């Protein structure tokens, strides 16, 4: 807690040469700078952990309304404290005010949902904007008042690490650690409530209490991040790290850890960068770091990432094109088809002969031994599925070709066995597995 002093010296001085940058990043940039970077990192970790549960409980936008609803509390707490003769800039006082109106804002959302037919998005939008509006009005009162220390209050909107004291940073870090520990201890309870609320309640879990604890943790993160990140962007620290982490894993505890890591890295990177360039507001730098990590995760993550997904789709399309070429070559050999499948582009043919499926022959393309096996299999799958559709699904024989072309490549061995059984059961002759038609 800071003594009643009113003027604040920026504790982080501008730095402009490269070795200084390295010093800041490696935590050699001075005691105060380190305190702020450490505090912001811990806050980022906590926001990542708690944000993961808020995201899974689909409460991220409620957190946004909550953070906007803190502004009237901040301005109000400042006015009241100053009127009573205390320092209006005491961090704990402002945080208390912020928490009070933030929670009132969330309560208003619940009241609107309970007593009207409005949906959640409308309720959140109304509460967010009205509370923020009240806050701006109160802020204008603060700024026209004669108290000289008023200037710093609007830092809470966009965040300004440069204006933080060491004790502010310690407070922020401590709250971050405590909030993370509470969330980790309650992982199991949060998990069941997020996944299946009805079941949790049927076993006698007090869902309202667990939700209230989660809300309390979100409030803690929001109010302790006001100074460093600012109330407009703090919600990003709750949403972006878990959303990015989701690309990397499908286990909850890993999601929480990765989210904490991304949150911590964003907090660290953002605070360090804004320590190097003090005119850059820390909040937006933190969010930009988090946003970059999100982008990387979205694009590059294995299996769930966009690139991996695209690669999978291209692979499947290639596989289907290859199968079509093999099938039509096989059917040409059998004499039941006489033209090549339109998928047979020159580079596909090239690729397939490199892999040894087909060979170039004086008379044109012919199948290799392995290619013939493959073509036979596809041809048979095609027939099986076609007969199944015609006999079971009552689809006209002239209409089955498209759906067969899609399905024949993805049939698993089990599914083929089931198909054979189903057809035999109806006494329908199935193509022999040694090729040709039965």
């Amino acid at each position, binding site marked *: 807690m800071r003594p009643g002093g009113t003027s604040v010296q920026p504790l982080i001085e501008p730095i402009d040469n490269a070795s200084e940058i390295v010093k800041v990043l490696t935590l050699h940039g001075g005691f105060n700078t380190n305190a702020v970077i450490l505090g912001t990192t811990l806050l980022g970790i906590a926001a990542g952990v708690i944000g993961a549960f808020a995201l899974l409980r689909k409460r991220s936008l409620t957190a946004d309304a909550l953070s906007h609803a803190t502004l009237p509390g901040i301005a109000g707490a400042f006015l009241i404290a100053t009127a009573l003769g205390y320092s209006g800039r005491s961090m704990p006082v402002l945080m208390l005010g912020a928490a009070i109106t933030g929670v009132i804002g969330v309560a208003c959302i619940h009241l609107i949902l309970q007593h009207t037919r409005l949906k959640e998005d409308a309720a959140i939008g109304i509460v967010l904007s009205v509370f923020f509006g009240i806050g701006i009005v109160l802020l204008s009162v603060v700024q026209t008042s004669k108290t000289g220390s008023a200037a710093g209050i609007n830092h809470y909107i966009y965040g300004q690490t440069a204006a933080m004291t060491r004790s502010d940073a310690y407070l922020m870090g401590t709250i971050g650690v405590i909030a993370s520990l509470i969330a980790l201890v309650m992982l199991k*309870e949060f*998990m069941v409530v997020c996944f299946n609320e*009805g*079941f*949790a309640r*049927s076993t*006698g879990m007090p869902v309202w209490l667990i939700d209230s604890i989660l809300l309390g943790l979100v409030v803690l993160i929001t109010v302790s991040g006001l100074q460093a990140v600012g109330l407009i962007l703090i919600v990003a620290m709750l949403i972006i790290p878990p959303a990015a982490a989701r690309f990397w894993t499908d286990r*909850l505890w890993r999601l929480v850890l990765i989210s904490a890591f991304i949150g911590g890295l964003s907090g660290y990177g953002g605070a360090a960068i804004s320590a190097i360039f003090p005119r850059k507001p820390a909040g937006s730098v933190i969010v930009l770091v988090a946003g970059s990590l999100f982008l990387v995760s979205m694009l590059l993550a294995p299996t769930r990432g966009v690139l991996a997904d695209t690669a999978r789709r291209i692979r499947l399309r290639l596989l289907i094109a290859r199968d079509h070429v093999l099938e039509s070559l096989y059917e040409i050999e059998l004499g039941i088809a006489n033209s090549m499948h339109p998928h047979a582009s020159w580079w596909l043919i090239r690729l397939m002969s490199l892999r040894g499926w087909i060979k170039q022959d004086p008379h044109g393309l012919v199948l290799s031994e392995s290619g013939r096996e493959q073509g036979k299999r596809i041809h048979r799958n095609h027939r099986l599925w076609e007969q199944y559709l015609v006999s079971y699904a009552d689809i006209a024989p002239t209409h089955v070709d498209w759906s067969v072309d899609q399905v024949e490549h993805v049939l698993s061995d089990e599914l083929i066995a089931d198909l054979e059984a189903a057809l035999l059961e109806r006494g329908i002759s199935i193509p022999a597995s040694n090729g040709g038609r039965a």
Partner: protein
Amino acid sequence: MTQTVLTESESPRSILDARPEHSADSPISVHAMTVAYSRKPVLWDVDYDAPSNALVAIVGPNGAGKSTLIKACLGLIPRAAGTVEFWGQSYKQARSKIGYVPQRESVDWDFPVSALDVVCMGRYRKIGWCRPVTKHHKLAAMDALERVGMADFAKRQISQLSGGQQQRVFLARALTQEAELYFMDEPFAGVDAATERAIIEVLRELRANGKTVIVVHHDLQTVPEYFDYALLLNMRVVAAGPVSEVFTNKNLHKTYGGRLTLLAEASEAVARAAGGN
């Protein structure tokens, strides 16, 4: 407001017939229960005593209030009127003896947990607050997965399971609750043949061990084969008792009768009067 309307509609009937009190040996005894969803009554004045050690099917058309009946019994949605007792006790007292399989569609299956994680949720109450899931409980969960034929899928993320496999995971979770009375909300909806066999096998096993299972069921054809008792429901109890007695054409016609019943119309009227649609 809705409550007053409904309570008033109660009073003349309770004079007309003296209905049985809760029976203490029935696993679940519902008395004069009325339930409304956002001002619209969906269940009127339900009286029901379930037999013990039996498989009971709740059947009725869409919107008949089948799921609502289960949820109201479990206290998941508020009752406008009426009482529910389990072996003569309140739900709170009897909770540890009750298992629940919610509708499969009621959850987001892209949730980042494995099949085993989901099944372990059935043990959370036994484990207690803020304590980790110990090996003992994981073994119990594995055992339940084994019973529904899903042991090989324990480590799979739940979105990678087919609909029928997901349903079996839910069933396994209820099994780990080690209850005496189970409520299952449409466990057979949209499942494959293997899952249907697995579920019915588990149901019979439960009955053989003296449990009672109350199942919301859609497929009328299989009711006589799978169940001993039936509760025919369409906003009210149309008939309840042994399948051989109550599963008659006349009762089914009354339950599924094409036209809007007066009850449904009255519900709409209540909703409108309360400032509804």
